[in-house]
Structure formats: structure tokens, C-alpha cells
């Protein structure tokens, strides 16, 4: 096993802080916002969502998993500074009361609507929002964005030091992307309904296996569990052996591409220490 000590010995301390070894998790100098999920913080460089960098989130369908993953970090940002969050091209209208229950201040939210076939103006709006001094975070749904567009957004986010999250469909995974952090989100179809998060590009070695995060609000999870329990008890009392409702679909395998090739194409090859 090659120990990292020789390099550490050669370099002075201040330079050592700026060296990132590809086998370790990078981002010591990145200013990050805690995601609100300890398991996710542990695998992200810098220990959270990086500010001033493009974060790319891929999911099978727009609008299914965003708020649970993003809301804790946004709430923390809103508590820190009285600045705006801008949503660009959100698939539907956010529902204020529900997001209020996730500690978000809806009055500090702007929504810019997209129109079908109007991708350029959404990109423009995203860049404009990034340049605004009163904005701390931008969430953009850009299904049609190309790599060159994303590069411009990455530069703008870096220059203005904003939290920028871009949501794209799963088909964008094999494309090259300038984002230093890329995640794939998939919902589990089991009873817990937890979110499966795979960090397939980051400054560091590939993730061994996807994380399972419980992103539902506690009250909703408790409500669903109670409903499930009640349904079970009703079945028992009625003496019906089979469920009344549709059979569970847990056994269906998810069609998730787990090919390691794409993960490796997008980064420096992971250095196997030997």
C-alpha cells in the first residue's frame, strides 16, 4: 500500500492543503452547505452542497424527488441570509403550505415559468438570476440543455458564488458535463419510499453503492405508516387473506442502468492504491 506521506513530507503545510489526491475525497477549500442528511454529507466533497459550482441532479421524471432532497439546505440558506431563491422552469407550481412545512419561506421564492420550445430564454433567465446580488440559490429544470450551455452556467455560478442546481432527465447521464458534482436520484418502490441517491461524479473515488435517504416529512411518513397499519388490521378483522387493493409491486425490478463505464468516463480514473 502506497502511503500518502512522501508527498506530505516534501510539500510545506500551506501547499499541502491545496493538494487533492484522486484517491481521497476532495473539496477541502469548497464552501459547502450541509444537505441536512448526514449520510449524504459524508460522501459529498466539502461535506455538503458546494456553493459556486453547478450541481447536476438526474432523475427519471422531473418533479418527483426535488424538494425532499433540497429543502433542508435551502431552509438553512434562507435562515442565514435574507435573499431570494429562484426556480427556473419548474415542472409544476410549488405548493406553498407544504413547502412552508419544510421550513422554507415562500415569500422569498421567485418562479420563472418555462414554455415548451423556449429553452434559450430559460438559460438566459438562469444566468440573469445567478448575476443578481439578492439571490443565493437557483434551481433550474433544463431538460434540453447541452454541455456548452451548462458550461456557461457553471462559470456564472462560480463567478457569483451561488448555489446552482440543475435538474435533468436520466438520459443525460452518458453525456459529458462540466458539473463537478453529478447525482442520480431514483425513488424506491417499496413501503418506505426512500430515495436512492448515487453520486456518480464527484472529486473523489466512485461511490461504492448508492445511498438510501428518507426524504419524506416525518409527519407524512407517520401518516402513511398509520394508514398501512389500519388497512392491515381491517384485513385481519374481515378475515380476508389477500389484500383488498392492488397487489404490491415491490418485486418489479427497476430498470436502472448501473454500468460503471459512464461513471469512469467522466472523471480521472480512480487510483487503486497498491
Amino acid at each position, binding site marked *: 500500500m502506497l502511503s500518502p506521506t512522501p508527498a506530505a513530507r516534501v510539500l510545506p503545510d500551506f501547499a499541502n492543503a491545496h493538494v487533492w489526491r484522486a484517491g481521497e475525497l476532495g473539496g477541502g477549500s469548497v464552501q459547502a452547505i450541509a444537505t441536512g442528511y448526514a449520510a449524504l454529507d459524508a460522501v459529498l466533497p466539502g461535506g455538503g452542497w458546494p456553493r459556486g459550482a453547478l450541481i447536476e441532479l438526474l432523475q427519471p421524471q422531473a*418533479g418527483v*424527488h426535488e424538494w425532499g432532497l433540497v429543502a433542508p439546505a435551502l431552509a438553512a440558506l434562507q435562515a442565514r441570509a435574507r435573499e431570494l431563491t429562484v426556480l427556473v422552469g419548474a415542472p409544476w407550481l410549488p405548493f406553498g403550505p407544504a413547502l412552508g412545512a419544510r421550513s422554507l419561506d415562500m415569500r422569498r421564492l421567485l418562479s420563472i*415559468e418555462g414554455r415548451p420550445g423556449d429553452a434559450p430564454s430559460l438559460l438566459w433567465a438562469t444566468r440573469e438570476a445567478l448575476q*443578481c446580488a439578492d439571490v443565493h440559490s437557483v434551481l433550474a429544470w433544463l431538460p434540453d440543455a447541452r454541455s456548452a450551455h451548462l458550461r456557461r452556467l457553471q462559470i456564472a455560478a462560480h463567478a457569483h458564488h451561488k448555489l446552482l442546481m440543475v435538474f435533468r432527465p436520466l438520459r443525460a447521464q452518458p453525456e459529458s458535463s462540466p458539473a463537478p458534482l453529478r447525482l442520480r436520484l431514483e425513488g424506491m418502490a417499496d413501503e418506505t*419510499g426512500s430515495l436512492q441517491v448515487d453520486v456518480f461524479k464527484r472529486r473523489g473515488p466512485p461511490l461504492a453503492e448508492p445511498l438510501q435517504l428518507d426524504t419524506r416529512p416525518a409527519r*407524512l411518513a407517520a401518516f402513511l405508516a398509520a*394508514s398501512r397499519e389500519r388497512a392491515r388490521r381491517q384485513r385481519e378483522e374481515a378475515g380476508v387473506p389477500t389484500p383488498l387493493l392492488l397487489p404490491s409491486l415491490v418485486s418489479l425490478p427497476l430498470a436502472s442502468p448501473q454500468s460503471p463505464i459512464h461513471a469512469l468516463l467522466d472523471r480521472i480514473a480512480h487510483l487503486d492504491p497498491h
Partner: protein
Amino acid sequence: MRCWIALHISTPTEAPPSAHPVLDAAALQQAAASLALGLTPRVALVDEAVLMDVTGSLRLFGGLARLMQLLAQRLAAFLDENGLQTEIRRAQGATSLIALGRLRQQAEGGAAAAKKRVAELPMHTLTAARPHLGVLERIGCRTWDDLLRLPRDGVARRFGAELLQALDRARGSVPDDYEWLLLPEHFEEKLELNALVTHAPALMAGVERLLVQLHAWLLGRQSGLSALKITWHLDKRRDVPPTGELEVRTAQPAQDLRHVARLVAEHLAQQKLPAPVHSLTLRSLATEPLADAAAATGSLLMEARKQGDSAVELVERLSARLGDARVRAWQPCADHRPELMQRWVPARGVMPSVSAQLHPVRPGRKRSKAASNADGCPPPEARAEALYPAWLLSEPIKLATAGNNPVYQGPLRRLAGPQRLEAAEWLLAGSEAARSAGLSEKPRALRDYFIYRTRQGGLLWVYSERLGATPEGARQRAWYLHGFFA
């Protein structure tokens, strides 16, 4: 003793071609005079120069040296902001004509010449002597001093009384008075374009030239612009209305017109010109005095401002290009029907309340909020609103059914429900929200809400219209998708 400053500003002849607008000499002089009005009310335009009587302002600005420095700073800042390349000359004297004479002398002989004694100023630097220069030269009068030594009545007979009067003014023995410059109440300027313009965005070059003049006018009046109107005059030979116009408004009165220029550009990009345009008029519709205009323009604290635009500017620019309806802000409503609990309204209309959120007026606000939280309000996660979906469809989607169950991207599995929601007419009689939202025509809502799970693992918020308690009603149930949990 009085103190005068003469100022001359010109475009250098060998200026490199630049992308920025180029003003003609008269406009530059007017702009310099407007800026000078920020330092003294006694400003006059004389020949090619701007004359300012700063006697009354010396104490306020801390002496002549400081005042000159301030003038130079403001001029430099203004020219820099508008990307103008100019030469500035300025001279100072005890009377207006001495200052002007030194200014002219400086143009010929450089900075050292301006230090000359008043008596040694050459004859041609006096405007009144210009018609008689040839004769004066031949009788040996080359400097002001030479002329003063001649007998007064003879000079008056030979050259007229004007020359003597001018000399008296220069010496300070008669009052030194001018028609002082007053800036008009409204800015209105017309510009003949160099060539006919057929494409609306190309009008921007002309608008920029007018905006530079408007900027100087605003600085002189120490006020900020909140609305302006641009009128373009179309070629009269076409069978179209003779003019077209555009009104641009901004929520925050601004002196720095870069934001206004960008707004105008966005609006012009959407205009179509029916005929070629030959001239432009720019008129200020509304201005507001800025309390700390002096601090905002000349102060070094300007640099301490945050980099980037403000939220108001962002919303105005986005609304200008995308339309008001596509840039929206959230407002809560008191109603128990989900679609009426909130409204997404055009953000441009509610910017004051959004800005108030960003920049709270009272610093004590934070403490009171913390106190109210401690009073026993439940934490947000524990509130009943946590059971609502994070996305709401503005129009519910009618779902297909398979047997007795709804279908959305495959079969669905019911997790929870029903949650009954009822809004009868007698309940809604005084509902403010329903009336203002214009939804009072369909006030009745009898729904059972369910939570369903899709095959992909997403949660849906689905309701069925309760058609009646009869079995037939239950059989022809209609299912609607109203939201997504995310």
C-alpha cells in the same frame, strides 16, 4: 473676492473609434453644465465654455482645491460610466472673464500659460475684442494691460462701449452677471438619426446617446428616474401612424441608467417598426429627488455596494423579456381548498413586499420572530401542512380508470385516504379569497383525497369528485390528479 471656474470639455480629434456613443460639442457642454449645477447654482454657458461662480460654495466644499478635485472626480465618473473619451480643461480666476481668458490661453500654451498674470493675457482671449483684433494689433495693443492704458473715451469712440464694459467686467469694477442656467422640469430631447433605421433594436444606439444626456440632467437635478418615454418618428411617406412610442418604468428611481438602458433594449427587441425611423425623442415622465444624491454619485462608498443587480432589477429585466405572467411570486390566501390557499402572481406587481422581505426595515424584527417561535408554535415539520404535496397542478388532470381505480403511467397503489374536503355555498358566502381569485362561479367542491403510489415510487395526490351517495354515483366516479409529493 469672488471665485470663478471656467470649464471646457471636448472630444479629442484623433479619438480612436469606440463602441460607445459620441456626443456633439453642444451636448457635451450641456452635460458638463448639468454636472456643475451639483456644486453651485450659478452656472452659465458662455461661448464654448461653462462658467461657474463658486464663491458661495467654497466653504461648503472645503476650499477651492477640494472643490476642483470634486468637480474633476464627478466629471471623470460620469464620463467613465458612459464610456465617453474627452479632454477636459479648466481654469480659475477672480472674475468670469479672467477665468475664461486663462482657459483660452491654456488651450494654446499649455498648463504653464494659465499661471500668467491677468495683465499679460493676450487680446484675443477677450470675446468683445475679437471684431477689432486687426486694428488693436496695428496700434500695438497685444495684452489687456495695453488697452487699459489707453484713454477710456477714445477707446469708447473708436471701438464702441461693449469693449470697455467687457474690460470693466474683467477687472471686477462692474457686476459680473449672467443668465444662469436652469434645468427644465422635464427632460425632453430629440435626436435626428444619422441614417434611416428599419430594425427596432438598432434604435438603441440613438437611445444610448440620449440617455447620456438624461444622466447628466438627472445628476444636475439630483434626482432619480422612474419612468421615461421614447417616441420614434416614422417616415411620413408610408401609410402608417407618424410615430410609435415606448414607455419604460422602473420601481426604484435610478441615476445610474445602465439598468434602464437594458430594460429599453429588452423592450425594443420586441418592437416591430412599420416604416423607417428618422428621429427619436426621449422624455422623462417621472423623477424623484434622491436625498443623498451627492453621496450616491461622488462618494467612494459606492464601491462598497454589493456586486450585481438588485432583485427589483432582476425581476424587471426578466419580466421585460419573458412577459409579466411568467415571472411570479407567491402569496398566501386564507382558504381551505388547496387551489385557493395560494396565488402565484406576477412578481412585478408585488416587488415592494418582496423587497421588504429581503431588506427588513426594523432591525428588531429578528428578535420578535425568535420570541414568537419560543411561545409554543409547533415546529413547521409537525404542522398538518406537512401532509400536502409539494407540487400542485394548477388545473387537475382527469385520470383514466381501470375498474374502480385511477391509472397514471401504469397501475397505482392506494396508500392512504380518503381525506374528505367540502366547500358548500353557504360556507363560502363571505370568502374573500374566492371572490378575489374570480373562482366564485364554481364554489362547490366535494372531494375525497387519496395518496397513491406510482410504479416508479412517486406519490400522487388524487381526488375523486363525490357525485352522490348512491351506488350509481359511486360507479361513475371521476378521478383527478391534483399534486405530486416530492
